[in-house]
């Protein structure tokens, strides 16, 4: 650690350890025992930061499942890297926000997804679509602005929808998707189902009025068991280029849900197993009680905010490198090798497979036709009078 430079990582774990949160909310599983040890004499960078569970709790995931999770995360990574290439080549337009570094969060939480559940997120949404089973070809074609895209070339990167698979969309206005997500949850109970809504939001969204209004409604409706909404805060430390500390004096994001009567906890969002444990437990709780629950997953976007964001004046290379050492895929890879589940060769084979799969998606996207011109005018309205202008 360079003198005078206190890593974000250090600061982050300081606040997790010291937050009043751990003492004020009874019945919340403390992360302290599960998180990587971050004392000065035991930096994660020295031991790879992997899987030392001080509480000795059993890891509830089989080797096979871990391999599957590894493949899913590797696929997301490969997909996102292909997107970055496509963007640099000018084949992907608009805004592009990749999930690199955050893979364990959605991958872990969607392990708790059951058919009929709904997922809603903001614009960093490729991983969610891939994890819900949307065809990578169609997702890539959407980014390439092709008629074969997941939403027919009308939404692009920020607006992936696969309603049949439960993906109710990516949304482009920070915080704007939170109220509809809460509405989904109310509808699930109104329609007397046992489905839940997984509502993903970033740390930046938690400063918006929409978040606070929606959280208030969720807590309120939850009192009557009418809001089965699992809030998943993907705290990647920055809203674009502004760190959490620079946006709120109360940086314990999970604790903000206390204000609305919503139970909450934190999880190490880089540790896929920790995420899965929290996800499965909290999702079931939400499903059973009809009450909302919030999990703040601490993670880090090792890629830039947007593909066009090269300067990164707001963070140092050192900081990024520190986080890269805790890369969720790297951590899992290390563990799989250490536990003799996979060897280097097998890892390379998996990486080769996903790259091939993504190469196929890129080829599909490149070869697809642009949307037919008449598509300009469709889907404006539902029903008879679809379009009101002159064609």
């Amino acid at each position, binding site marked *: 650690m360079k003198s005078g430079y206190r890593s974000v990582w250090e600061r982050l774990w300081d606040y997790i350890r010291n937050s009043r949160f751990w003492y004020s909310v009874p019945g919340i599983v403390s992360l302290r025992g599960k998180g990587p040890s971050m004392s000065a004499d035991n930096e994660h960078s020295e031991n790879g930061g992997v899987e030392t569970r001080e509480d000795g709790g059993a890891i509830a995931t089989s080797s096979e499942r871990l391999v599957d999770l590894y493949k899913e995360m590797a696929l997301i990574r490969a997909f996102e890297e292909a997107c970055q290439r496509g963007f640099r080549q000018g084949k992907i337009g608009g805004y592009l926000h990749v999930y690199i570094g955050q893979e364990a969060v959605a991958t872990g939480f969607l392990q708790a997804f059951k058919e009929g559940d709904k997922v809603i997120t903001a614009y960093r949404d490729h991983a969610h679509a891939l994890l819900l089973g949307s065809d990578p070809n169609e997702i890539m074609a959407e980014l390439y602005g092709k008629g074969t895209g997941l939403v027919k070339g009308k939404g692009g990167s920020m*607006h992936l929808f696969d309603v049949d698979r439960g993906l109710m969309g990516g949304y482009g206005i920070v915080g704007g998707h*939170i*109220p509809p*997500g809460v509405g989904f949850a109310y*509808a*699930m109970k109104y329609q007397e189902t046992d489905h839940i809504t997984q509502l993903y939001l970033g740390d930046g969204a938690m400063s918006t009025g*929409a978040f606070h209004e929606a959280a208030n409604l969720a807590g309120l409706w939850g009192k009557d068991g009418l809001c089965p909404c699992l809030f998943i805060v993907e705290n990647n430390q920055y809203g674009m280029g502004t760190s959490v500390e620079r946006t709120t004096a109360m940086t314990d994001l999970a604790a903000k849900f206390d204000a609305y009567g919503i139970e909450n906890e934190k999880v190490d969002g880089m540790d896929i197993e920790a995420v899965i444990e929290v996800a499965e437990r909290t999702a079931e709780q939400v499903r059973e009680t009809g009450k909302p629950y919030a999990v703040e997953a601490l993670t880090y976007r090792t890629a830039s905010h947007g593909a066009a964001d090269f300067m990164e004046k707001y963070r140092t290379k050192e900081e990024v490198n520190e986080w890269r050492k805790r890369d969720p895929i790297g951590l899992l890879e290390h563990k799989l090798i250490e536990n003799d589940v996979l060897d280097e060769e097998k890892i390379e084979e998996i990486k080769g497979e996903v790259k091939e799969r993504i190469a196929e998606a890129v080829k599909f996207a490149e070869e697809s036709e642009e949307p037919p011109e008449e598509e300009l005018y469709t*889907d*404006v*309205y539902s029903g008879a009078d679809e379009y009101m202008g002159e064609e």
Partner: protein
Amino acid sequence: MAETKTYREALREAMVHELERDESVILMGEDIGVYGGTHLITDGLYDEYGPKRIMDVPISENGFTGAAIGMAMMGMRPVVEMMTWNFSFLAADQIIQNAAKVRYFSGGQVEVPLVIRGPNGGGVQLSAQHTHSLESFYAHFPGLKVVAPVTPNDVKGMMLTAIRDPNPVIFLEAGALYGTKGEVEEGDNAVPFGKARIAREGSDVTLIAYGRQVNLCLRAADTLAEDGFEAEVIDLRSLRPFDEDTIVESVEKTHRAVAVQEQWRWFGVASEVAAIIQDRAFDSLDAPVERVSGAEVPGPYARNLELMAFPSEKQVVNAARRVMYEEEK
């Protein structure tokens, strides 16, 4: 069968009709339940349908409108009350960014069968922050439907249509007319959107308005008739979709048109009316289309100033006289 009812009663009747007909219909808004609604539109419904369907919500327009959008995307049919449309700016992000567009940017995968309703316009000394006519604001956005019924019969019939519509409908009520009475057809009198109503037939000049200004135009038409001029009054009823044909046919007959709106002149509905007429009925025009609009000021409080800020019968009459090349009065 028709019965005389107030605008308020007709509106409530439509919502009750749909609450009875369709389980997916719920009402949501501030103080619409236990309190009975600030304007008593939903009075008594809470007792009848309970809190799950008649939802009182905290003062959080953005939050509850957004939640209603989510419910609609899930197949429910929420009817959201804006206590007044002035508060809808707080929900504008939800209405415009989500309700209006989500069908398009999802490639047609979802629909939003949502009604947002409430009193629109000023006129009762509520001053600047509570005096807006928001029709052109919302009608600007593709993906929304915008209607502004003025008669009790239309408010019922168009509410039935609004709730059944699979799209988000901005339902602008003539707040100042809640107590006015009119004949209302019994039962299911659904009035289609996109069809203007000829409120009065005439041959000399066409007065085009919607909402409360229709009544102003009717009074102006009576005054004009005293001097032997027969004004045709068109009640647009629906602004998106917009009934161009009725206007064009009327102007082809009268050759003169005045568009009247309570909202500010610039970028308003009346300008759109004028544009459509010059576009489609240019060769029938005998005079430029006149617009009568509100003064370009925030709504004032004092009664005399407020009256000056809104279109007056005299302004409408004189605009009509000008397009007929008659001396103003």
